């Protein structure tokens, strides 16, 4: 395997890690509006992700950084082509990040409510826009011979990409509800389960619809069906399995299963993409492959050594933080 192929896999893994980890804190952020009934419950929800959300977000930065360093042409084409959506993602993440800190700094209800809305919008916009981004990349963007995207509105926003956005948002929402079940006590925990038992059907429906439209809109089933079809089948099995797990109230297992579901979904997108990193809707000659987009061999070699050296430490302290904050949030002694 070439180093560039290894880095394509690393970036896929980083995005899987991002959606797995930040996915649940996006979901918890959404549930501050849909699940919480009062200020105390909202605080409990925010405290359940308080120690984790920022470290989870680092996975996105690392994925972006890895794209920049390993595949400068991929980075340049994608980030210029998706300038406005990515600016909106950034604004949403900035607003969300400060809201966690600011919401408790004033007692006035208006102050708290305003920041709570920023948390909600900042939690729902990024997964939706990333869903739109990845599905529209799979569908193909008008990329010319100079690797530039000159796209119109319907290239970004169409039935398929919006469905992709909704699917990713729902995946994160379910994942978040399952995390709430794991990390809270009392009424909130019970209601999270009830809501998850409803949301799971929406997740399944939207996943099936997404796969169906992928058959029409992309070459998901043409290029390497021997991998993508089992991935899809396994994904559906996982979510059906979660229905059973929820019925038996297996909290840890259903959260793990939903994590696997997210990994399979993101894995499916990257499997379909490989060995391309961007697909041109104008001509397949303009597709950007990972080989064409990659940095020089020396850069990749240095990056590999640095990444392999530092990764154990990063993984170690993240696991450590989950261990330290393993207790359920009980509504007392809360920071946020």
């Amino acid at each position, binding site marked *: 395997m070439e180093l560039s192929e290894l880095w394509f896999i690393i970036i896929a893994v980083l995005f899987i890690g991002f959606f797995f980890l930040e996915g649940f804190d996006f979901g918890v952020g959404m549930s501050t509006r849909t699940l919480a009934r009062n200020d105390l419950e909202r605080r409990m929800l925010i405290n359940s992700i308080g120690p984790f959300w920022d470290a989870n977000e680092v996975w996105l930065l690392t994925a972006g950084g890895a794209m920049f360093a390993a595949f400068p042409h991929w980075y340049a084409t994608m980030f*210029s*082509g998706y*300038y*406005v959506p990515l*600016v909106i993602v950034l604004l949403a993440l*900035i607003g969300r990040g*400060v809201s966690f800190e600011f919401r408790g*700094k004033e007692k006035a209800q208006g102050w708290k409510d305003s920041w709570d809305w920023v948390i909600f919008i900042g939690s729902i916009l990024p997964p939706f826009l990333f869903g739109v981004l990845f599905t529209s990349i799979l569908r193909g963007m008008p990329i010319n011979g100079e690797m530039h995207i*000159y796209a119109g509105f319907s290239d970004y926003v169409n039935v398929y990409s919006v469905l992709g956005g909704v699917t990713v948002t729902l995946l994160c929402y379910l994942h978040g509800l399952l995390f709430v079940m794991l990390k809270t006590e009392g009424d909130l925990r019970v209601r999270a389960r009830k809501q998850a038992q409803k949301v799971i059907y929406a997740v399944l429906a939207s996943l099936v619809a997404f796969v169906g439209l992928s058959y029409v809109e992309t070459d998901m089933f043409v290029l390497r069906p021997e991998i993508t079809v089992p991935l899809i089948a396994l994904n559906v099995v996982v979510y059906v399995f979660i229905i059973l797990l929820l019925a038996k109230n297996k909290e840890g297992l259903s959260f793990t299963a939903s994590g696997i579901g997210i990994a399979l979904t993101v894995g499916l997108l990257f499997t379909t993409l490989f060995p391309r990193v961007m697909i041109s809707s104008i001509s397949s000659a303009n597709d950007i492959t990972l080989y064409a987009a990659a940095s020089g061999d020396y850069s990749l070699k240095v990056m590999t050594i640095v990444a392999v050296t530092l990764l154990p430490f990063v993984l170690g302290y993240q696991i450590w933080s989950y261990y*330290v904050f393993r207790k359920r949030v009980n509504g007392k002694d809360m920071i946020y």
Partner: protein
Amino acid sequence: MTEIGRQPWTVFGLLTTAASVSPNVSVEELLFSLIAFTTIYTSLALVLVYLFMREIRKGVVYSTQEEPQVSVDPFDKGAYE
């Protein structure tokens, strides 16, 4: 200063600023992001100054109570109870 001093280069001797511009990002899009970032940073700065001033006005509160002895070792059974 560094940005002005580096002109006309983005990467000194290798890449000029003119060559590093994204041709497909329009002026309107740049204007949108510039206004959005300026607005959000200015408003957050104002909120921060307000919170800082409020904390400073409160002054220092000296606690007369002694800190209770609690273990901070997460592996300790009593920690984070």
